[in-house]
């Protein structure tokens, strides 16, 4: 059962990802990105990371993709003014480079030993909360500075006149 679900959601994630990078119009890409993000959230659930799956859906599919869709509609580039894509040679070379990378990773992944047991509950609210507020408290607090910097930066960049 677990294997079937893994293959199903893995296939959905990979197909969605391929569609994201091949669609001409960014709106179609954004919608396929949501599909991929949901499939990845399902994979997180398979690894018992329920909290991370929820955060994935809320933050990624909920906030980040909505931001993308908002900007696509805001700047509203007409179909005729979408950029002409690169030459086929460039694209084939890019795919080849990524293929080599994936093959290398596949070889490395087989050599990297991990215990093959059932999923430990490391992504649930309890374990994540305990880790975030004890061992990783400093990193967690500094994250707030990062978010503040991002908010101020985004407003300062997108504002017409400061």
């Amino acid at each position, binding site marked *: 059962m677990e294997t079937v679900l893994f293959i199903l959601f893995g296939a959905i994630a990979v197909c969605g*990802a391929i569609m994201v990078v091949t669609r001409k119009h960014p709106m179609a890409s954004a919608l396929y990105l949501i599909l991929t993000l949901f499939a990845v959230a399902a994979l997180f659930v398979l690894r018992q990371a329920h909290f991370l799956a929820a955060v994935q859906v809320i933050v990624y599919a909920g906030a980040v993709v909505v931001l993308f869709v908002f900007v696509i509609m805001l700047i509203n580039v007409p179909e005729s003014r979408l950029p002409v894509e690169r030459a086929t040679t460039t694209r084939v070379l890019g795919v080849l480079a990524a293929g080599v990378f994936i093959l290398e990773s596949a070889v490395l*992944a087989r050599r990297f030993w991990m215990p093959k047991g059932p999923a430990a509950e490391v992504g649930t609210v309890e374990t994540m909360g305990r880790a975030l507020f004890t061992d990783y408290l400093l990193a967690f607090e500094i994250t707030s500075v990062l978010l503040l910097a991002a908010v101020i930066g985004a407003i300062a960049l997108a504002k017409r006149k400061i």
Partner: protein
Amino acid sequence: MIAPSAYLLLSAILFGIGAVGVVTRKNVLIILMSVELMLNGVNVAFVAAGSYLGDAAGGVFAFMVMTVAAAEAAVGLALLIALYRLKETVDITELKVLKW
């Protein structure tokens, strides 16, 4: 039972597809989405490694990556809006004022 290497391979595939999008597309919006795909591929590896090794660090790192991805999307899209106002284009090859 799924082998850990299956998750790592899936993570590499997602990262690779995202990288293809970054190097082969010209539309800035799609390049930004491909970066999100790459970050998501990394998250799959973090969560899988964390749950197989029984270490909470995997989940925590995935959480941090999500935060950085959200911040990156906000700043990247703000830059894109500022550039679009200036140049009226989303073609990344047109944005070369810093090129010598």
